[in-house]
């Protein structure tokens, strides 16, 4: 899971509004509004960088959080978005 690499889904539209990422699914018109950490992770996701590196370079650098709990929270957040096709695992 630490080496998980994800990319943004191909069936979504996303816009940053007042610091929050607003994501609309083309499949079922579901709407996702990410908080500031979620937005930072979304912006860092590029289909190449492992999730653990994103947590180190983006989340732990910019927010005062414990690394293990940050990684756990981000993994949970990413898994949730993957289950709706908003993010996709890169193999």
């Amino acid at each position: 899971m630490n080496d998980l690499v994800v990319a943004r889904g191909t069936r979504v539209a996303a816009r940053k509004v007042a610091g929050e990422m607003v994501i609309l699914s083309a499949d079922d018109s579901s709407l996702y509004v990410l908080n500031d950490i979620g937005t930072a992770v979304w912006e860092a996701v590029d289909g190449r960088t492992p999730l653990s590196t994103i947590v180190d370079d983006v989340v732990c650098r910019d927010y005062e959080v414990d690394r293990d709990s940050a990684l756990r929270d981000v993994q949970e957040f990413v898994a949730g978005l993957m289950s709706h096709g908003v993010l996709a695992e890169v193999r």
Partner: protein
Amino acid sequence: MTEKAGCAAESRGDILPAVPLPSGVVIEVGNIPVGLNTSDPALVGLLEHRFDRFLRPDRIPAFQFDVTVVPQGTFDPEADLTVVASDGRWTLRRGDFRAEWDAGKRRGWIRQTLNPYAIDSVLRIVHTLVLAAEGGFLLHASSAVRGGRAVLFTGPSGSGKTTIARLAPPDVTLLTDEISYVRRTGDGYTAFGTPFAGELGESGESTSAPIAALFRLDRGADNLHERLGDAETVRTLMRNILFFATDRSLTRHLLDTACDFAARVPAYRLAFAPDARVWSTIQ
């Protein structure tokens, strides 16, 4: 032989058309006339009654549908609405109708049982698709014009859209108590009246006005309103916009439009007690 036939056709053309003119109605909502061609007089009667304020026989339709009435029981009456796009053709299905629409050719057909609701649904869907491409949307909202400017009241069922419309003073013109029609115009957005009625069971007026404000309805003891941030406005819009497409390009357009609307039109949370004072609050 050919010449004689040609001459005969020409001379007869002065008296009778060579091809029977299609009968039907033209329904214009949001300045977009849609032609519904049908030879069924009972359906024409139903449509003329339901859409009476929006009939525009003088307009050339931007889109046309050939409508055929089929017997009850032709379709599964329990079938939910599905909207599917493939190669520019949209297929619409529900328990009371089947329809296809070629957006590029601006033509389509509808097979439906004898009721006014199938056309109502097809019109809503076609308008959402047209508006999504050009920068507009249909919104679950009542809307009204006062002093030449429109206000929208959005929220889910039970939030008070119809109540606030009922409470409108006499100088207010109701555009709709259920589905608002929003188009980008110039530097802002314009609301148009719609025939898509809610609990009032009465269509809005066929008029339009630039939108001054959007209100998200909350029931409350006092009449108060507070400004919504842009992100909350986009969230509110996306929860209440009618959208049927699963097309990625239209989805992007729609989100762009919602963000643009939020940047241009002030939006407020409105808590209101159900009495006429609410209209003083928002003035």
